[in-house]
């Protein structure tokens, strides 16, 4: 019994540390930048007592950008954690298996072909993500779903959609700069409208994912055991894929093709809190928020005055991590 208690205590401590990291990320992201803002002024600004340019910077630039970073981190991490369970594959991630590419292609189509209709980017990205997920399922379906086939189908779909994105960028080469930044994934100039786009999806996705955590736990025991315990395995996969696609699409529509968050965060969280999804999902959400906030802060301050898109930093960290997992797990 002691071992169980201590492991519960350990998970609790890790979750508290993650929550503390979120606070650190929040403070760092608001205070650091071309203008340094003392920590005390954050509280003044939030309580409405601040004034002057610092107040303006916090309320109009830093705070909304920080919130977007946190929500994007939550969405991508939850999406990756869910995909890893339903595909029983440690390498599953919305970016790697092509769901993000689907969102990216339709999002860029709207951006390049329908200028002035930016409000359509999110719904289009969602349709693209669901379309890619459906394609991957249909291609991978052969007497049921096998995880390896999903990954391979995802890689193929991703390559196909990537070709579409490249073609669009060549045809619309005059407007390509905005799309290019979007391909990499970045938070530059993200503000309150973007917060409004993403937060409903974060809330709904988080609630649905947590409700499904028991089912994800059962799914990890393998299809036969899960079916023997009365779980509708195929239905669970379809529903949870839709939730993962919704989370990924809403993140992509706001920051573009930000990769590797959904791969690194759930993995690191799994190492620290274990594979029980009742802890893994909240842990991934907190850690994901902290990672993207801190990474963005670093990316925009480290090479000042040049602001690096956070996607570049995530790829630099994520690609070696992916290779590390590849060597360890397969």
């Amino acid at each position, binding site marked *: *019994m*002691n*071992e*169980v208690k201590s492991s519960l205590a350990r998970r609790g401590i890790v979750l508290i540390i993650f929550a503390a990291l979120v606070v650190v990320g929040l403070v760092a992201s608001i205070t650091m930048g071309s203008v340094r803002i003392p920590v005390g002024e954050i509280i003044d600004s939030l309580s409405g007592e601040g004034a002057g340019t610092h107040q303006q910077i916090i309320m109009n630039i830093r705070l909304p950008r920080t919130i977007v970073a946190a929500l994007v981190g939550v969405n991508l991490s939850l999406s990756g954690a869910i995909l890893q369970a339903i595909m029983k594959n440690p390498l599953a991630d919305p970016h790697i298996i092509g769901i993000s590419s689907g969102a990216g292609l339709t999002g860029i189509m709207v951006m390049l072909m329908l200028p002035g209709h930016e409000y359509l980017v999110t719904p289009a990205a969602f349709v693209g993500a669901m379309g890619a997920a459906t394609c991957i399922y249909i291609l991978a379906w052969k*007497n049921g779903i096998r995880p390896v086939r999903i990954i391979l189908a995802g890689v193929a779909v991703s390559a196909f959609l990537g070709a579409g994105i490249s073609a669009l960028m060549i045809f619309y080469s005059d407007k390509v700069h905005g799309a290019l930044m979007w391909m990499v994934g970045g938070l530059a100039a993200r503000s309150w409208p973007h917060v409004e786009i993403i937060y409903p999806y974060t809330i709904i996705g988080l609630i649905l994912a947590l*409700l*499904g955590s*028991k*089912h994800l*736990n*059962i799914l*990890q*025991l*393998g299809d*036969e*055991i899960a*079916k*023997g*315990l*009365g*779980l*509708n395995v195929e239905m669970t996969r379809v529903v949870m894929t839709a939730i993962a696609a919704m989370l990924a699409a809403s993140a992509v529509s706001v920051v573009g093709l930000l990769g590797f968050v959904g791969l690194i965060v759930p993995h690191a969280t799994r190492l620290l809190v*274990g*594979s*029980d999804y009742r802890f893994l999902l909240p842990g991934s959400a907190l850690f994901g928020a902290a990672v993207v906030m801190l990474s963005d802060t670093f990316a925009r301050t480290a090479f000042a005055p040049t602001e690096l898109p956070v996607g570049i930093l995530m790829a630099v960290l994520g690609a070696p991590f992916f290779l590390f997992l590849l060597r360890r797990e397969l």
Partner: protein
Amino acid sequence: MALEAKNLTIKIQGSTILHDVDVTFTPKKRTAIIGPNGAGKSTLLKALSFVNPKYDGEVLLDGENIRAIGRKKISQRIAILPQSPQAPPDVTVGQLVDFGRFPYRSFIRASDPKADREAVEWAIERTHLVEYRDRHVMSLSGGERQRAWIAMALAQEPEILLLDEPTTYLDIGHQLEVMNIVEEINRDYEMTVIMVLHDINHALQYADELVVIKNHGVFAQGTPKDILSVELLAQVFGVRADIFKNSQGVSVLSPVSLVR
């Protein structure tokens, strides 16, 4: 609690695995399913437990078609343990056994925690795993691990327990330990046990009835005493075997040669 299959036909990727099988399993008894590799023994168990619902014909539980019962209700009445199950590396025995309560939980409604705790407790005790409760399942020896999976199935509090080769890969001591647990559960709780067994001597020692599967169908069914014969072994397995009684009066067989 009678479980029966009527006109059961199963095709997997176009090839017929089972054809027009009719079989009734006697309630409260231990039945062993034996037969050559690829005869469709595991396939039969998966259809009986609705793990594989892609079959023609009917599976009836107390006369009711299991298609009409619903997955979770089936899992409250029939538990199945497939071959070589895997768990994530950090799942403890206690957590694994608790997963056996999943059929009693739903997306919204919480289950009865007291009933859950009692069922888990009981399953852990009956499989002699009390001191292993906090150990990681995948770190246990083969025999202990198999007992943990059986405990998970028992926590479902089923009327019928289906086991697919529960003793494969175990040494002889752990094999007997697992079979004794199954025997005790069947005896003490009148739980119907239907098990695919590779080792015919185990079937002879631990089963009340044998169902022999060959050529996509039931070749013979009955008590070991009634149906076991040198001819049956030759026809089903292509093996010439000696049959004799051990010190307990149980028939055992020793294969001698292949029938050419």
